C-alpha cells in the first residue's frame, strides 16, 4: 500500500515550528518497576552511578516517583536536583502525574526510570509539535501498539488489548501542552479504575496470563523457536502504558516516534545493566543517527539505489551548514533544468534530462534525511518538499510533451491518473481518521482489537520479503516513477515514457483501489 509512503501523507502532521519551543519539558520518572532482585530496576548500577542517575542526567527538571520503602535510596541515586516523592501505588502514581500535568507549563514527559537509551531518542520525541510515544519494532517491548501513518490508532496495557499491532511502546510518553488537560483527566480517571479494576479489565488481564502460559508451553515444544527474546509478562502496574491507552482512547493524536537504529533497554539485573552500559559506550552515535535518518518504509528504488549514498550526502550537507529548505529548493532547480532538457526533444536533451531528473530525485531524498539527521523540521519545509515533488514530476511531463510535440493527450492522461491516485490515497486516509471515535478506557478492547482474520500461513506469505517489495513496487511509488521517466526517456521516446507511466499507474490504481473497495463494502 502506498499509504506508508510520504507522498500520500498530509504535511501538517509531522512538522513543527522551531521557534515555538517552550522552556525545558518537565519529566515524571517512574522509579517503581522492580528488577529481578525485587528492588527498583532504576537503582541498578550503571557506569559508576545508577541507571536512574544516567537517565536524569539526560533530562531537565524531573519529578521521580518511588515506592516509600525505597524513597531514600532513590533520592540518593537521582541526584540533588531531582524532586523525589513517595508514591505507594499505581493509583497514587497516576494522581501525581495528573497534578504534574496541571502544573506543567510546557511539555510533560512520563517515563520509566530504568530505561537506558541515547539522549537523541528523547530529543526526537520532543522535536515534533505534537504528543508522541517512543516506539520500537514488534516484539521489542511488552506493550504492542498499532501505528497508522503518523498516529497511534490503538495501544495496549495489562488491561487493554490491541489488534494487529505493528510496533511496541517503549515506555516514554510525551504530552504536548495542548493535551495536558486531557492527560490530567485521563490520569485521574485511570487512578480510580486501577484501585478497583472493572471485571472486563480483570478478564483481559487473566486472558493475557493464560496466553503467556500457553506461549511458554510452545517454547518447550520448540526450544529453537524465534520467540527467544519475547518480552516479559504484561505488568498491571505499568502506568505509562495505561496513560498511553487513555490518551489514544480520548482521541488525542499521539505520534509514534520510532527509535530506528538507536539503542534502548530496560535491564532487570546488574549483568544486563552492565551489558547495556557497554553497548551504549561502544556506540558511534553519529553513525546511528545517520542510519536512522533513512525513512523507515520506502520504495524499492529509493531504498536500494538512492539512500545507501544519499545519507552520506546528507551528512556532507549538514557539515557545510546547509538547511533542508535550501536542499529542497536546489532539488527543484535541478528538476526545472531536467524539464528544460527534455523540452529540447533531442536525444542529448533526453539523456541529459534523465540524468538531471535522477539527480533531482536524489537531492530530494537528501533534504528529508538532512532534516531527520539534524533534527530540524519546519512546517514550510514539509509543505515545500511535498509540493515541489509534484512540481518536478509534472514539469518533467510538460518538458517531454513539449519536446515530442504530439503526445499532449498522453501527458494529460498521465497527470490525471497520477493526481487521481494521490487523491484516492489522501481521501482514504482522511476517511480513516474521521472514522468512529475509540471506546472509553473502561473497555478493554477497541475497534482495532479484532482477532486477526488471516490464516497463519497466509500471514507468513504476506510478510515474505520479496512479496513485500513486490507489493511496494506495484504501488508505483515516487522513486520508481522518477526512474521510469528517466530510463524510458533516455533510451526510447517520450511516447514510450507516457505509455509505461499509464500502464504501471493503471495497474497500481486497480490493485490498491480494488483492495480498498472490497474492504469498504464488507
Amino acid at each position, binding site marked *: 500500500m502506498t499509504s506508508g509512503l510520504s507522498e500520500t501523507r*498530509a*504535511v*501538517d502532521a509531522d512538522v513543527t*515550528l522551531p*521557534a515555538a519551543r517552550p522552556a525545558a519539558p518537565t519529566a515524571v520518572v517512574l522509579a517503581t518497576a522492580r528488577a529481578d532482585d525485587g528492588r527498583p530496576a532504576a537503582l541498578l548500577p550503571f557506569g559508576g552511578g545508577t541507571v536512574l542517575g544516567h537517565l536524569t542526567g539526560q533530562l531537565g527538571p524531573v519529578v521521580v516517583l518511588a515506592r516509600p520503602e525505597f524513597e531514600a535510596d532513590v533520592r540518593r541515586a537521582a541526584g540533588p536536583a531531582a524532586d523525589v516523592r513517595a508514591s505507594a501505588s499505581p493509583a497514587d502514581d497516576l494522581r501525581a502525574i495528573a497534578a504534574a500535568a496541571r502544573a506543567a507549563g510546557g511539555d510533560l514527559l512520563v517515563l520509566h526510570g530504568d530505561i537506558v537509551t541515547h539522549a537523541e531518542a528523547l530529543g526526537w520525541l520532543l522535536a515534533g509539535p505534537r504528543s508522541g510515544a517512543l516506539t520500537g519494532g514488534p516484539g521489542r517491548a511488552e506493550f504492542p501498539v498499532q501505528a497508522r501513518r503518523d498516529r497511534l490508532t490503538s495501544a495496549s496495557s495489562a488491561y487493554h488489548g490491541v489488534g494487529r499491532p505493528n510496533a511496541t511502546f517503549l515506555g516514554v510518553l510525551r504530552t504536548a501542552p495542548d493535551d495536558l488537560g486531557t492527560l490530567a483527566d485521563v490520569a485521574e480517571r485511570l487512578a480510580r479504575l486501577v484501585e478497583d479494576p472493572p471485571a472486563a479489565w480483570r478478564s483481559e488481564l487473566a486472558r493475557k496470563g493464560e496466553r503467556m502460559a500457553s506461549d511458554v508451553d510452545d517454547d518447550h515444544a520448540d526450544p529453537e523457536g524465534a520467540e527467544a527474546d519475547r518480552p516479559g509478562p504484561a505488568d498491571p502496574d505499568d502506568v505509562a502504558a495505561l496513560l498511553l491507552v487513555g490518551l489514544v482512547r480520548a482521541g488525542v493524536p499521539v505520534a509514534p516516534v520510532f527509535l530506528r537504529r538507536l539503542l534502548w533497554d530496560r535491564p532487570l539485573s546488574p549483568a544486563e545493566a552492565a551489558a547495556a552500559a557497554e553497548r551504549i559506550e561502544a556506540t558511534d552515535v553519529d553513525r546511528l543517527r545517520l542510519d536512522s535518518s533513512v525513512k523507515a518504509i520506502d520504495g524499492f528504488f529509493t531504498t536500494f539505489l538512492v539512500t545507501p549514498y544519499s545519507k552520506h550526502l546528507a551528512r556532507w550537507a549538514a557539515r557545510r551548514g546547509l538547511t533542508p529548505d535550501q536542499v529542497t529548493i536546489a532539488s527543484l532547480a535541478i528538476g526545472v533544468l531536467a524539464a528544460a532538457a527534455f523540452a529540447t526533444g533531442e536525444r542529448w536533451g533526453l539523456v541529459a534530462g534523465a540524468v538531471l531528473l535522477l539527480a533531482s530525485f536524489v537531492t530530494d531524498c537528501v533534504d528529508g534525511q538532512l532534516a531527520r539527521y539534524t533534527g530540524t523540521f519546519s*512546517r*514550510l519545509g*514539509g*509543505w515545500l518538499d*511535498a*509540493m515541489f515533488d*509534484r512540481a518536478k514530476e*509534472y514539469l518533467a*511531463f*510538460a518538458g517531454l*510533451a*513539449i519536446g515530442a510535440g504530439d503526445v*499532449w*493527450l498522453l*501527458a*494529460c*492522461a498521465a*497527470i*490525471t491518473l497520477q*493526481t*487521481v*491516485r*494521490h*487523491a*484516492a490515497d*489522501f*481521501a*482514504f486516509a*482522511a*476517511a480513516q*481518521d*474521521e*472514522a*468512529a471515535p475509540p471506546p472509553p478506557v473502561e473497555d478493554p478492547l477497541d475497534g482495532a482489537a479484532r482477532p486477526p482474520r488471516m490464516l497463519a500461513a497466509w500471514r507468513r506469505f504476506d510478510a515474505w520479503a520479496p512479496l513485500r517489495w513486490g507489493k511496494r513496487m506495484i504501488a508505483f511509488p515516487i522513486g520508481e516513477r522518477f526512474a521510469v521517466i528517466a530510463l524510458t526517456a533516455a533510451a526510447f521516446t517520450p511516447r514510450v515514457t507516457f505509455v509505461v507511466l499509464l500502464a504501471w499507474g493503471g495497474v497500481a490504481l486497480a490493485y490498491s*483501489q480494488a483492495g*480498498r*473497495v472490497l474492504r*469498504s*463494502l464488507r
Partner: protein
Amino acid sequence: MTALALYRDDGPLARALGREAEPVLPLPAAALIVGGLAPLLVVAVVRGGEVSYAGAGVVLAWLLLTAGASAGAPDSARTGWLTPPLMRAAEYSALIWIAAVHGASAYPGAFAVIAALTFRHYDLVYRRRRADRAGTLALGWDGRLVLGYLLLVAGALPAGFYFMAIVLGAVFVADAVHGLGDDG
C-alpha cells in the same frame, strides 16, 4: 467541513444542486459521479472529439447535474472516500474532452489548466486548515467546467485555457504564500 467534503472542491453551483437534491437522493455520491461521468467517457471513446457544441453541452450538463447533486448525498462511512478521487477523475477528464472537442491544438492548454488545478488539489490536502481561502475565486470544479465550456463555444480555445491556467495558478500560489506567511 469534513476533509472529504473539502477535497471535493465544490463551487456554489454544485452546492446549490446538492441542497436541492438532498431530500430525494436515492444513491450514494460515488455512484452518482460514476453515472455522471459514464456518458462522457463513452462518447469520448466512440466519437473522440467529433461532437457538436450542443451535444457536448448536453453531456457536460449531465455530468454537472449528477456530480453536483452528489454534493448533497449523505456521507457514506464506507465508500465516502471514493468521492474525491472520482471528482478529480470527472473534472480532469471533462477538461481534456473539452479540448478534444476543439481539436488537438487545445491539449497543451488543457494540460496547463490541469497542472494549475493539481497545485490547488494537493494544497487542499497539505494545508487543510486554511485551504478554503481561494475557494470563491477558484470557482469550484463546477464553475471551472462551465467556464471551460463557455471558452469552447466562444471559440476562445486554446488561448482561453492558457489564460485560465495563468489566472488560477496565480490565485492558488498567492493564497498559498499568504497562508504560509500567516502560519509563520
